[in-house]
């Protein structure tokens, strides 16, 4: 028990046991919920992920974030979303042209960096995109983004979901 002395010489004792109890419970809870996933990532504030029972964990930070109002690629706003779709000026053949341009730039930069020393795993990774998308968006928007990505030679998508029961 910790104590302090007052000017008059009295000793006041402070009972630390309740605090220790709280600390112990808190530490137990935090240790139990401690994540050992390979990537620790905080979901964007503007995104509500759908729940899933998948066991596959996130292995890279998402490249494309589709919030309720914006499409963001590598932390750069590429297009705005109004009424669940992008504006008509950004559309081209059903895809989103600015998204295609940005992804193409990204793909070319990666190819330049890995030129000549690409393994099969690197090649597969080159054609894979991780996407974080709000659960309320419809397939029309998702399709536009996927089409733009397809034109930039990305054919595999890792779609982020919130794992249930975790």
């Amino acid at each position, binding site marked *: 028990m910790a104590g302090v002395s007052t000017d008059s010489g009295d000793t006041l004792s402070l009972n630390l046991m309740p605090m220790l109890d709280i600390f112990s419970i808190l530490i137990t809870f935090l240790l139990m919920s*401690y*994540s050992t996933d390979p990537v620790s990532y905080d979901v964007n504030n503007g995104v509500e992920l759908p729940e899933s029972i998948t066991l596959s964990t996130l292995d890279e930070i998402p490249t494309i974030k589709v919030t309720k109002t914006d499409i963001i690629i590598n932390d750069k706003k590429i297009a705005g979303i109004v009424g669940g779709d992008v504006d008509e000026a950004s559309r081209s053949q059903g*895809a989103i042209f600015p998204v295609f341009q940005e992804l193409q730039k990204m793909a070319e930069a990666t190819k330049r960096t890995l030129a000549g020393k690409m393994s099969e795993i690197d090649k597969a990774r080159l054609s894979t995109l991780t996407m974080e998308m709000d659960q309320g968006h419809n*397939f029309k928007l*998702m399709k536009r983004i996927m089409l733009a990505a397809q034109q930039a030679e990305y054919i595999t998508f890792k779609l982020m979901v919130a794992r249930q029961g975790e």
Partner: protein
Amino acid sequence: MSKKKRTKKIKYRDIELNIMPFIDVFSLLNTFLLMSAVFLSVGILEVQIPFLTSAPPDKKADERVLDIKVDMEKTKVEVTAAYNKPPINEQKREFKVDKADMPNMHKFLVDLRRANPEADKVQLFTEDDVIWKDISMVLDTIKVRAPSDPVVVPAGASELQKKLAAEFLFPKVVMASVILR
């Protein structure tokens, strides 16, 4: 001299345990854990989209294989399984897009996979107005192997295929609606 019965007096002393270092360690541990805590565990659902390739056609193109198609609308999902060559043996089932009917769809897919271990691909066709929340629910139903489901490994499977079979019911899901207009 009279014998006096001697009684031993046990002296108790107040011993104070210094718990301050203990509290210090707890505080630091607490701070670290709170800072690094991730309260939402994020997972992924992997899908593919169709693409054009100049690669030579697959040798298996002549084989009789089962094509599984899932047509998703806002309120219903239709699963069609048919062979690409006669006899086609088409099987068709319709399900509602809700959590209550998804186990039935999963069971139908498990039966299909069990009867056709080689068929590891599903083509998902989705209407434009279906929301991502519902798509993810259907993807879960198609892809994720429940603990009670059998592990279906095709004959002559590689190590990778065995690993995928242990985790997924159908490892390959192609979002077949993603095509240029």
